Structures are given as structure tokens and as C-alpha cells.
């Protein structure tokens, strides 16, 4: 057999070395390219929402600029007159909007916190927000779970849906926490 690096033994040696050296894997065996945050099965082009070479997700809609007539850019003239952002003033609908359209952003956590304050709870397995349905009694309640009819928020159809749940308390997220190092929400702004 070929005894140097250019035959089967050479390939085998490299593969064996890659088993213990993760730096070699990326070239020896390559990476799972489906895990780079790009929807390679998308029927639409990817480039219009491509977040960049190191983005794990595509651009969010709010990240994509669009040329508008300069007259539309009124923020500079009115921003001092706008009230500050206060999530506790807004309806649930807007909070859900902020939660679902700002993944990985302080706004998502802030919206989650306000929803929690309003007795919504995030089910970590079902991945939905749940709250008690008004007027509906809990059918069963123990120290670890309860059962009854609740509302969950369906983000696909954008509405609350009544459903029976068996709610294991350990599956409900506690109060969300913002890392203390992060800058709080700007005091002024507009939507």
C-alpha cells in the first residue's frame, strides 16, 4: 500500500487524529452545514435576509432598512415629545409582539417580565404563554401540578385559545431575569 500521506493510510491517520483533536475535525470531516442558521430548504432567496458571516439567525424584519423619502424620517423632530417606553402601559397584544419579534434582545426579556407580572406563565416545554381563563375553576390542584382550562397564546394565528392543560409547575418558567450588566431600556423612544 501507499505508505505516505497520499494513500489510504494517510487518510486513516488523519481521521484517527481528528478523533482526538477537534481543530482537525473541521477540515477532515467538515461540519454540519445545516447547523449554521441558514434555512437551506427555503424556496426563497436567502441573501435578502442574510445576517452576515457570523450571524446565527437571519435578519429580523426591523433590521432591514428600506429607502424612504427623507420627509418620512420624523423621529428627530418628535422624539423629545414622545412619552418614554413603559411596557406596563401596553396591551398584552403588543407585549406578545415584542416578545416574538425580538429574539435574543433585551426587549424580549422585558416583554416576558411584564407578561409574567400580568400572570402569564411561559411553559418551557410547550413553548407557549399560558394564563388562567377567567371564570374557569381549576379542576385539580396539588403541590406539584394543577389541571383545568387555560388560555394559551397562539402566535401563528395571533389569538388566545382555550385549552385544557395538565400544568406541571416545574415546567413553568419563573420570573424572567435581565442580566444586571445590560443597559436598561432607553428612556425615550417611539414606535
Amino acid at each position: 500500500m501507499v505508505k505516505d500521506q497520499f494513500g489510504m493510510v494517510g487518510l486513516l491517520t488523519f481521521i484517527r487524529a481528528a478523533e482526538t483533536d477537534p481543530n482537525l475535525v473541521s477540515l477532515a470531516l467538515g461540519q454540519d452545514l445545516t447547523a449554521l442558521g441558514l434555512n437551506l430548504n427555503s424556496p426563497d432567496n436567502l441573501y435578502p435576509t442574510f445576517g452576515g458571516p457570523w450571524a446565527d439567525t437571519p435578519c429580523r424584519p426591523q433590521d432591514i432598512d428600506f429607502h424612504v423619502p427623507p420627509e418620512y424620517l420624523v423621529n428627530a423632530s418628535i422624539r423629545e415629545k414622545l412619552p418614554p417606553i413603559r411596557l406596563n402601559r401596553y396591551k398584552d397584544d403588543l407585549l406578545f409582539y415584542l416578545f416574538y419579534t425580538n429574539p435574543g434582545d433585551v426587549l424580549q426579556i422585558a416583554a416576558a417580565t411584564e407578561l409574567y407580572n400580568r400572570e402569564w406563565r411561559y411553559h418551557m416545554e410547550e413553548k407557549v404563554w399560558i394564563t388562567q381563563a377567567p371564570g374557569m375553576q381549576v379542576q385539580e390542584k396539588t403541590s406539584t401540578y394543577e389541571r383545568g382550562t387555560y388560555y394559551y397564546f397562539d402566535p401563528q394565528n395571533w389569538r388566545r385559545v382555550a385549552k385544557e392543560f395538565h400544568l406541571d409547575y416545574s415546567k413553568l418558567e419563573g420570573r424572567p431575569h435581565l442580566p444586571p450588566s445590560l443597559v436598561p431600556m432607553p428612556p425615550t423612544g417611539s414606535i
Partner: protein
Amino acid sequence: RDFDDLGYVEKTDYLLREWVSLIHSPNGIREPTKAFGTFVQHLNVQGFLKTDDVITRFFRISTRLCVDMCCQALTEQSNSPTVVRTKCYTTLDAYVKLIALLVKHSGDTANSGTKINLLNKVLGIVAGVLLHDQDAHTIEFQQLPYQRMFIMLFLELNAPEPILETINFQVLTAFCHTLHILSPSKAPGFSYAWLEIVSHRVFLGRMLALTPQQKGWGMYSQLLMDLFKFLAPFLRNAELAKPVTLLYKGTLRLLLVLLHDFPEFLCDYHYGFCDVIPPNCIQMRNLILSAFPRNMRLPDPFTPNLKVDMLPEIAHAPRVLTNFSSMIQPPAFKKDLDSYLKARAPVTFLSELRGNLQISQEPGMAYNIPLMNALVLYVGTQAINYIRSKSHTPNMTTIAHSAHMDIFQNLAVDLDTEGRYLFLNAIANQLRYPNSHTHYFSCTLLYLFAEANSEAIQEQITRVLLERLIVNRPHPWGLLITFIELIKNPTYKFWLHEFVHCAPEIEKLFESVARSCM
């Protein structure tokens, strides 16, 4: 020298601050052209637009002032990163707006030359400041100000305005030229920012989608080659340091977007890319070779009894937008090659062939890989033309006993293991989507296997195919059908070879690949 005249520098600084304030004011945002008009008058009165030299000096100092302001802000610890960056963006965006407005409104509408000249001047100045800065401050060099200037200026000059649409191609050319000057090999400290710009969705759209007749494709391919050339020495080392891994991963992401959205681009320029990608970067190369035209439906390579010879696509040659024939140098060698292909003589040509491909004794650099690739593709395409001229189609019979196959068989036998590996790689680089090149080179590889006079040749053919198959997807169609044919067709007695069973891992690998193939 610019900064020796402190009075001039102070004046420039003052004017810039005035502009920043003006353009970010409510009136400036609402009516930027009006604000610009006022400011240009000011510049004129102060003599800053008097002559070409004066204008150049103004931009050089302004660029320097903006960069210095950013660098100072970035090194301050007192403010939060968001506040610091916002401060940088405010100044940089204002400066960019000034440049964009000057470009748009310089000269007259009928003559775009003045505008483009000014743009080229400014881009050149920014590039010059960058290169100087990078050399002067290796560790502290900041990419941000330059990245922001380039990308924001690009976005400004690609706004949907009639004036800009008429000069759009020249604008793209100017940016590509500048990015080529600032390629990672020349400005490694700017590499990440460079890749951000080249991958930007608006840049991609303009270069590859919106510019008619694919006029941006050639320039974009040059930028990708610049990137691959920079990465090559580090990737050849196989063990990747973190900075290189990050740049490599970013490159893979970009290639995935290109594969998904612009596969025809990768198809057309695959040859040049494979020339500069190191042989051990198998997945990256596979990504490029897996591309196929979007209007094509590839037959499933795992279809039982797939008759590749009967596919209509194999009659058509793919586009190869590199003049590979001209890469066969020196001219005397090309002349001898053509003579041999025509007359199958003199036989000495074959014995001298190896010498033409070897360039040094240095390990890893013994062979002229671009020449090897060009030779293989040239001989193969000449072979296809020759067979067709006889009203035949290339198959295992018609490719044999020809000057072309003489050359291939000679290379397989005469080269050492390294040379043979590179030679077989050159053939495998043509195993792509169904077309005449894929078909011819697939037959050639199988023919070389069948007619090999030593097991080493068969082993190396197997090695070249296998290493391209064991990496994660994607895999080129031509690679799959060649390997399937090799392991399925009893003619090749594949499973009887010692190298198939040389180690448990290798056996398992073959069995695993064979299982997925069959």
C-alpha cells in the same frame, strides 16, 4: 505632512463638526440636500474645494479625524459599548453622507465621469489611510471606522435614485476595486470587516442579482478568490487557530448562501476557485462543486440501474469562465502538448511531462497545481471534442487508446504519490452536475482504475473519491455516481483490493458509504 498645518487641521475639524451637527438636525434629516447646499457654500468660501489637491487634502484629513475620533471613543472605558458605538456611527454616517452628496451633485448629470472620479478618489484615500493605520497600529487597529465608511457609503450610493442608477455599475466597480486593494492578504487586520462587507445582503444583491447580464459576477469572483488565497496557507496547515476558524466559518456561511441563491455563479467560476482552495479543504471545495443550475433536475444517483450514458445532459458542455488553456505555460510546452494531441508523437513528450509539472523540491510545493489543473481540463476537453469529431460519444470504449488517454495514463503511472494525488484531484474537480465534463472525467477515472498497472494507482483513486465522500454534505452528483459505479460494477473488483480492508475504520467507512449508496 497634512497634520503639520495645525491651523488647516483645526479648520477641517471645525467644519466637520458643523456638518455632523447640521445633517443630524431635524431640518438636516428632512432636507439633506438643502443642508448640503448650505454647507458646500461654506466649504467654497473657506477654499476647501478650490483645486483637486485641496479637495484630496480635505478628504485625507477628514478621514483621519473621523478614524481618530472613533478609535479614541472605542478605547474609552467610561461609557457603555452601545453609547460608544452610537457616537462613532453618528460621526461616520455624517461624513459618509457628505461624501455621497458630493458624489451625487458633482459635475453634471450628462457626464458621470466627475462623480466616479471623485468616488474613486475618496475610496482610495480611505484605503490608503487604512493601510497606513494597520501597519502603524497592528494590535490597536480598529476595523470599525473603515467598515462603517465603506458599507454606509455603499448603501448611500445604491439608493434607488435616478442619478445613482445611471452610474451604478461604475460605483460597483469602484468598490470592488477598493476591496481588492484591501483584500485580506493586503489588509489582514481588516479581514473580518472585509468579509462583512462582501457578504452584506445589499452588496450581494447588487453584484449578483440586480446588475444586468451578470456583469458583476466576474468582479465578485475575484473577491472570493482573494479570500480563498488568504485562507489557503492557514487551511493547508489543517490545524486551525481560532481567528482562522472564525474567518473560515464565515466563508462557509457565505458560500452556502451563494450555493442556495446563485448556484450558476459557483458553476461558472468553479475552476478558478478550485485552483486556489487547498486540496485538504474538502468540504469547502465540495460546496462549490455541488452547485448546479437551478433549472436542472438531477437524477437521483442512487437510482438502481441508472444509465448515466443515456442522460441528455451529458451532451452539453458546462460554462467555464476561466481561460484555462492560456494557463498552460510556457508557450513551448503548450505547443508540444498540442502537437502530441494531434499526432500522438513524439513519445518523449510523455516522459518529459512530469518535469513540466514539478517546480521545486520543497515539501508541499513540489508541483505547479494550477498548471496541473489546466492541463487536465484542457486535455479532457480536447478529448471530448476529438471523440465528437468522429461522431462518437465519450464512453469507456471511445475514451481509450488516444493521445489524450496516453497523457492521463502516463501521469497516473509516472508521477510520485504526491503528484498523482494532485493529478487525481484535478480530475475529481470536474465531477459535478450532469454535463459532458462530468461524464468524461468520471469515465476517465474509472478507466484509470480498471487499467492501472499497480495497486497504488487504484488505492489513490479510491482515496481521492473517499475523502470527498466522508466529509459532511453536500456532495457533488458526479462524485456520487462515479463512486457508486466503482463499488457496484464487478468489472472493477473493488472489494477484492487489500486497501479496502486495511483497517477496521476503513472497512467500516466503505461499508457505511456503500450502504448509503445502495
